Every structure is written in structure tokens, then in C-alpha cells.
């Protein structure tokens, strides 16, 4: 067993993990943060994306022991404590950027990572950045629109659905 301590959404979290425990498993099963979804468990779908020291990472393809000492941000830390959605979450709601919602945590976390590095991405840059996030409902148009809107850009130019 390995003792790990990390900061998750601003709070210190510690635990004992097996070498093989995945970060996604630690977040969901030890910390109860089930907003991080495990879709494919093969690092394709991106539903499990969280931020590790500010960078988007597929938490199903990182060992929890590797996150010892890291700052982790998950979907649970995105809204304000009173439940007010952040600008990206609100934009997903406003632009109907989700249907079943399964991929949404990963989409929001990837979008947040993109906008941190590139505050005004083009439609093409958004689509390329979401290569590792699969959505089986929306056809992506409304997700792209939501991210354009969250970055304060006009969404009318986004390719018609």
C-alpha cells in the first residue's frame, strides 16, 4: 500500500492506495467524488478528465500514487459553494451542450483547460482540443457553441447543425 496526500478541489485528501489504484478510482470510491465518470476505462472517451496541477489528464489512465502531492480539480469544484454554475457550466446549460450528461464532466474540465491556455479559441481549435472527449448524443455542435460562448465569443458563426 502507498500513502497518498493530495489537494482535491482545495481540500486536503489522504488515503492508503494499492499500487494499481487509478486516480479515477481513488476520487470516486475513496473520496466519493462520483462526478468524474469512467466511460471506456481505456483512455479513449475522456469522461474521466480532471486537472492535475492545472493540466487536463485522463484519471482512468493515471495511478493514484502518481498524484501524491498534486493539486487535483474535479467537476465537483467547478460550481460556487452556493451551487451557482461557473461560466462554462452555465454556457453548457444555455446552449444545450449536453443530452444524457455522461460525458459532460470531462467536457467541462477539458474546456476549462483549453480556455486557461487559450482564452479565445477558434471553432477549429475547440474541435481539435476535444479530440479525446467523446459525446454520443449531441454531435458536438452545441458543446462547441457552449465553449465559444463561455469564452465570450459570438456563437452564431459556429457551423450549423
Amino acid at each position: 500500500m502507498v500513502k497518498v496526500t493530495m489537494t482535491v478541489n482545495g481540500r486536503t485528501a489522504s488515503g492508503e492506495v494499492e499500487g494499481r489504484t487509478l486516480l479515477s478510482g481513488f476520487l470516486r470510491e475513496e473520496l466519493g467524488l462520483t462526478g468524474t465518470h469512467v466511460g471506456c476505462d481505456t483512455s479513449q472517451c475522456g469522461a474521466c478528465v480532471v486537472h492535475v496541477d492545472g493540466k487536463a489528464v485522463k484519471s482512468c489512465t493515471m495511478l493514484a500514487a502518481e498524484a501524491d502531492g498534486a493539486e487535483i480539480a474535479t467537476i465537483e469544484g467547478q460550481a460556487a459553494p452556493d451551487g451557482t454554475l461557473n461560466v462554462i457550466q452555465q454556457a453548457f446549460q444555455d446552449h444545450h451542450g449536453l443530452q444524457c450528461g455522461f460525458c459532460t464532466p470531462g467536457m467541462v474540465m477539458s474546456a476549462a483547460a483549453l480556455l486557461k491556455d487559450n482564452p479565445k479559441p477558434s471553432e477549429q481549435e475547440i474541435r481539435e482540443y476535444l479530440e479525446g472527449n467523446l459525446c454520443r448524443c449531441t454531435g458536438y455542435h452545441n458543446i462547441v457553441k457552449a465553449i465559444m460562448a463561455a469564452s465570450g465569443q459570438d456563437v452564431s458563426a459556429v457551423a450549423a447543425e
Partner: protein
Amino acid sequence: MYEFEFEKPSTIADAVKALGEEDAQALGGGQTLIPTLKQRLAMPSTLVSLSGIAEMRGVCPDGDAIAIGGATTHAEVEAATADSYPALSALAGQIGDPAVRNRGTIGGSLANNDPSACYPAAALASGATIVTNAREIAADDYFQGLFTTALDEGEIITNVRMPVPQAAHYEKFVQPASRFALVGVFVARFADGVRVAVTGASEEGVFRWSEAEAALAGNFDPAAIDGLSVDAEGMIGDLHGTKAYRAHLVGVITKRAVAAAA
């Protein structure tokens, strides 16, 4: 996954010592190894993480070359080589997806030597030197076939020294589901010749296309490739493309790479 112990040394010496244990295995970014472990295709006793070794991270100039620490992530290579080696930066920025690029490392990719990976093409075309904890290996001697390299058990890629060509380009024909190269060609023009490395195509893994190199040395122009072809025998044939299709793509993608580099 089967059970394993986890160690995270902070020096190369400690990592080498940990890898001396029976069935210990090095862990780079884990973007290939962790899925492999999930499939129970590997059963290491101990995983030795290389991500905590500061001397193995980062990119720095080294004369006419750049030196890249073995534990440097694809995203870090992309950012750090944008000015010093743009073709390499572009290659790093096309691997997998953004989250994969934040974990996967150049040393991990080269140690794994997947026949469809991108970095082997860059290393071979650049005439890189693979620096390990024990020795230096020329790229021409390093790649030895499908998932096979010159590395010994427990040997770690600590650094990769890439000479920077006068002109270069990596052209990748992406397999859209996996985003690996269906065929990828790295073309590099140096003062003393041209090197062409092809990934994704051959059953033997990355290879140099010497006929194209000779033709391009005299005339660095896509037209120099006209009439040249690689033998379809020995190419990978699978549900994504036949052997003949891949052989054809090698010519097309090489031309595109030269056009973009010229």
C-alpha cells in the same frame, strides 16, 4: 490489473536500483502501459515511476542539437521546441489528444517503439542519439523491429539528443479512431544529406526509406519521389488498410512532407 508495488525514485541511480528487482518495470507517462496492465498483458512486480526524476525532465539546447529529458511530456516538448525545432514541436502536438499529451513522455514512446508511434520517426530521421543510464545509442542502431529496441532490461532512456535539421517536416496520415499514424513520414534535410523515416507502415516498425533519401539529396523536391515505391510485401495489412494501400501512402505522404519542408 494484477497487483504490483509502486516506487517513485527521485534520482536516476535510485530508479536503476529499483529496476534491478526481478520483474520490475519502468513507468513513463503510462499512456500505453496502464491500458496494457488493465488488459492483464503485463504482470510487473513493481512499477518504478520515472516522473519524479527532475534531471530527466525538460528541453535544452545542446550545440546544433536539442537535448530532451526522457521523462518530458509530449505537451512539454511541443511547447519547448516551437522555435528551436518546429517540425518536432508539431509532431509532439499531434500525438493522441491533449490529455494524453499531458502524461505521455518521449522516453516512454521510444522505449515502447510501437510500430505506429510518431516519435520513432522523428528520432530516426533526425539521427538522434538515445542516451540511457548506461550508454549512448545511435537511432540507426536503436530501433530493432516491432516493440523491440536496443535497450537492455532495466535500462532507462534519460535523454534524447536530436540534431536540428536545416529543414524538416512530419506528415501524419491519421488513423481517425486511434489517432496513431496509419502512415507517418518524417523528412529531415541536413547539410550532408536527407533522412526519411517512415512509421506506421512496416511490420518491422519504423524504417529509413533509403531510395527516397538518395533521390532527395540531389533534388529536395516532391518530384524527386516520382517513380519510387516501397515494396508492399512487409507492409502492415489490417482492417484499416491493406499492404498495397500503405505502400502507396508511403510515397504520397513522403511527397507531402517534402513539399511542406521545402
